[in-house]
């Protein structure tokens, strides 16, 4: 290429910058997340002083030992009850929002959500079996996780057998598999009506933790999934011109789709296994982010992580405080809060979606 007028060219190109997450959105959203986390840690049946909580957190830093922390009972509430639950909310919310955005990107379909390909129905069936069999409670996440992956595998096999690589056949296969698994799940639940309440509670989604076990179980899956999906943020932008054009630009669309779907499915199955079927996060958060900050996946994906985490931490805070000492299923709250908010954002968006 000719480089005529070198210096002039350089000063002109100095102003060009590829799309990226604007700093104000990054820092703004992180600040809101921090506030949500502190709120989640301090508010509850046993209120904790904000100052004490902050001191305890700062004391986690190596070599720092400030006075003015919590007393032993309060510290136990913080570290054994609140913190695991808040962290689980962070992970699950971030994962569901990120997976939803990933699915929307590879399927180029704004209605895609993390449960699109039969993860939810499969996990629901797995969890139902675990509950009605009355076995070890620790097996429930494993059963849900396995069921979710099997659901997606069935969807993939069916989609391939009817339509090769077409995305529509995959999505339709997901509908068929989900309907079938949901029917089986309903049947099993009906036959074991004494477990109805518990199955129903799981389906509606809840963040129940006993210490850090759940967090540690899902963390590796969610971390790997998130790294893979976030790594594909530029390639998802390339896919937005369609698989054919992406191919001429050197991106094999079907391979990118497979990798992102696998990662999103793995992360979703892990999240669902400990949280039940929390709806609305995976579809609403990416759209809110897109409408507010821009539709490049280099903006949507990282911001969806932060906003999804914030959204679920706040929703869980509401779920465990409004009917205190009882609890609402967090899935009810995400829809109850999310639906009106989504409508509000839709209405104020500059253009119709």
């Amino acid at each position: 290429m000719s480089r005529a007028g070198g210096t002039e060219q350089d000063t002109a190109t100095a102003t060009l910058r590829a799309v990226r997450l604007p700093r104000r959105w990054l820092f703004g959203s992180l600040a809101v997340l921090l506030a949500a986390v502190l709120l989640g840690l301090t508010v509850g049946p046993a209120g904790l002083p904000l100052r004490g909580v902050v001191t305890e957190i700062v004391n986690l830093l190596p070599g720092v030992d400030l006075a003015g922390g919590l007393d032993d009972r309060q510290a136990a509430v913080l570290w054994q009850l609140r913190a695991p639950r808040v962290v689980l909310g962070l992970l699950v919310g971030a994962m569901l929002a990120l997976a939803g955005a990933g699915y929307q990107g590879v399927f180029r379909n704004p209605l895609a959500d993390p449960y699109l390909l039969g993860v939810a129905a499969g996990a629901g069936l797995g969890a139902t079996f675990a509950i009605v069999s009355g076995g070890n409670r620790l097996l429930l996440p494993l059963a849900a996780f396995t069921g979710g992956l099997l659901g997606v595998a069935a969807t993939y096999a069916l989609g391939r057998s009817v339509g090769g690589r077409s995305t529509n056949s995959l999505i339709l296969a997901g509908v068929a598999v989900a309907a079938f698994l949901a029917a089986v799940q309903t049947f099993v639940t009906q036959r074991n009506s004494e477990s109805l309440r518990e199955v129903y509670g799981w389906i509606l989604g809840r963040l129940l933790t006993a210490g850090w076990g759940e967090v540690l179980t899902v963390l590796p899956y969610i971390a790997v999934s998130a790294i893979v999906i976030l790594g594909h943020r530029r390639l998802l932008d390339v896919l937005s011109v369609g698989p054919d054009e992406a191919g001429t630009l050197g991106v094999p669309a079907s391979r990118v789709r497979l990798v992102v779907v696998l990662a999103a499915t793995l992360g979703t199955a892990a999240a669902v296994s400990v949280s039940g079927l929390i709806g609305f996060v995976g579809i609403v958060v990416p759209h809110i982010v897109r409408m507010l900050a821009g539709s490049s996946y280099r903006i949507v994906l990282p911001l969806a992580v932060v906003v999804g985490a914030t959204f679920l931490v706040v929703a869980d805070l509401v779920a465990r405080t409004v009917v205190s000492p009882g609890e609402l299923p967090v899935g009810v709250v995400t829809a109850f809060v999310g639906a009106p908010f989504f409508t509000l954002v839709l209405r104020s968006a500059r253009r119709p979606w």
Partner: protein
Amino acid sequence: MTTLTVDGVGVTLLERPVVDDVSLSVPAGTWVTLVGPNGAGKSTLLRAVSGAVDHVGVIAFDGVEVARLRSRERARLVAVVPQDPARPDGMTVLDYVLLGRTPYVPYLGTESAEDLAVAGELLDTLELRSLSDRMVTELSGGEFQRAVLARALAQQAPVLLLDEPTSSLDLGHAQQVLELVDELRGSRGLTVVSALHDLTTAGQFADHLVLLVDGRVVAQGSAQEVLTEELIRKHYGARVRVVTDPEGGVVVVPLRSRPAGGGRDVGGVA
């Protein structure tokens, strides 16, 4: 400078042969244009050359077969201006042009300063600099077509494929785009293969014309050799007058087969 060789190439779509035993050679730095009626296989042949559809036979760039290339390597050799390119939502002109740098951006990586420099230079060449922050969905047809061309050129591929690059453009913009491609072919030594509907334009901008009918080559050569009244009547079912214009080009003028009144002599046009 890259020579494109197409030898005995066939493409079958949905069990129907769409391109059948096509052979042609495009010497480095020349412009070959495919013409032919609708459904002749022009777009499919271009898609085969870009590696987008499977083919039998040999398609090679300087002897390297396209089928053996990985998609990134291929995208560095061949760039495509599609017939009906998608306009992605919420993407700026700059980011759209930078899509052309994809074969140079590491997998999971992001654009380098050099990628931005290439894109910046093309924004200037194609007079898009002032539009660089605009969304591609907001551009006029002519502006968007220039952005598509800039994206293709950003691939810095020696071979450029144009599938009806002017179908959505008015006469003036169509000429501008084609002149620009011709200029770039001269300055960068591009090898160009295009499919064009307009026969006069095809004759003006190509070194070599290939007439495809039902997936086969029925004639090839200079504009004078391919754009004859007889061949066009036979294969397009169209009545035309071919006029040699004083500057040496060939002008194809469609004629009405029957006068509106019926029964009147067509002598007035003769």
